[in-house]
């Protein structure tokens, strides 16, 4: 009998997109909470120095970096490549989308990340099928090796249920009642924390909705992780 050992997985998730208000921070925050809930707190970077929402929502767990400065670039890129088993997640401000891609190309970051056994995963955000198609193609051409995952955020994507089958990888974030999100924000609660009966949301209905919503999102992150880990599976003769 042979034992199957799945490989380790140290991803660098980058929530990105050339437009504002398409859910990049929400995706980054979901992934961050997924990692924490899995017992692997990630290294998180909030690359929106003007409105560091990820840092605020995670009570400073994300380091704020300004890509407009060389120091900020060094902190982000060298932080992403820091040795260690922690997953990495970046919330990239839309204003830094092109400069970030330029920098990734200039530094040959994707190859360096692969060399150090990191899996670069680009979570592409947008609103329409057309813009997803254009930017996904550009990302695949410019950044390699990397996996581009189109994020269908039910809060912002038009026709989220049709036509997205053309993309090899996609991730769906279902809509959730805005009243729940507002409540979380007011109470300074994390997503997972808010599902707790004692310390979380007071309404069992709201907690149930949040739990279902998180389960849907986390299941997809888990599927992505399994796909990567199984993709690099090694077989040891037993």
């Amino acid at each position, binding site marked *: 009998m042979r034992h199957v050992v799945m490989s380790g997985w140290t991803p660098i998730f980058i929530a990105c997109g050339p437009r504002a208000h398409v859910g990049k921070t929400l995706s980054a925050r979901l992934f961050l909470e997924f990692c924490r809930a899995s017992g692997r707190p990630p290294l998180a970077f909030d690359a929106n120095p003007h409105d560091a929402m990820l840092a605020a929502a995670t009570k400073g767990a994300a380091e704020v970096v300004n890509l407009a400065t060389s120091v900020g670039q060094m902190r982000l890129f060298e932080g992403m*490549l820091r040795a260690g088993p922690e997953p990495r997640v970046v919330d990239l401000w839309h204003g830094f989308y092109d400069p970030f891609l330029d920098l990734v190309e*200039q*530094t*040959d970051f994707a190859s*360096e990340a692969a060399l150090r056994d990191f899996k670069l995963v680009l979570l592409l955000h947008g609103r329409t099928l057309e813009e997803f198609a254009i930017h996904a193609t550009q990302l695949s051409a410019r950044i390699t090796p990397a996996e581009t995952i189109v994020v269908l955020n039910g809060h912002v994507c038009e026709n989220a249920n049709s036509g997205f089958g053309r993309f090899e990888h996609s991730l769906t974030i279902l809509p959730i009642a805005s009243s729940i999100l507002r409540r979380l924000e007011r109470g300074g609660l994390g997503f997972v924390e808010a599902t707790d009966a004692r310390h979380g949301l007071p309404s069992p209905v709201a907690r149930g909705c949040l739990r279902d919503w998180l389960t849907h999102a986390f299941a997809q992150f888990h599927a992505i992780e399994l796909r990567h880990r199984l993709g690099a599976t090694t077989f040891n003769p037993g």
Partner: protein
Amino acid sequence: MKHSVILVGADKGGVGKTTTCRGLLDYLIERNVLPRAFDTETPRGTLQRFHPDITEIVDLSQTAGQMRIIDTLARTDVKASVIDVRAGQMLRTLAALRDMGFLDAVAEKRFNFIVLHVLGPSIASLDEIAEAVPFTGDAQYFLVKNKVNDTTFFDWSPATAKAYFGKIRCAGEIVIPKLNEMAYEQVELAGTSFSSFVADRTRDGEEAGYSFVLRGYVRTWLRAVYAEFDRVQLADILTASPGKRS
């Protein structure tokens, strides 16, 4: 393959002569033209700090220093000698090369002579062009626009640009792009060649741990510098056999 003497100079200081030299030395090594270099910043040297293995400090204002370079041209196995001329010495050096008969030897096609005249964004720097012309008739004379800042070299003033660049017979213009300041400073601290810095190596060949981002900036900049030297076919000029080029 004739021996090539590449003089990198400017009378104006702070225009990037040594930076140009450093980029050039990396380029020559990359194109398999083994160079030697002479640093005329006596007594301490500047270029030598970055390329210690191939650089010698000489005093070009002294006959002994001139002999150290010119008298060894025929003997050395190396086929390119790069001279980093210190500020204020370019015209004097050209005059000395003429007086010692080196320019006559160039006219007789015994040597290649390439002048990289590094320009800064000032009228004083551009005024040097006319002064250098009498010495560069048989040389491959290149104007190097080194973008130490965001200068346009007076592109916005056609009359000024024409007055300085329009009437000169030169082999071409080379534009050295601006390098990220922090990247420049880290290479300066490292005291190594640009190519070693990109390869993350110390002067002794050990792994250095330089900033990944800054190495990326230097790599991109160095590629652009190489592309400029390639655009003016510098490597071809150096490696051409005596019969092929006039």
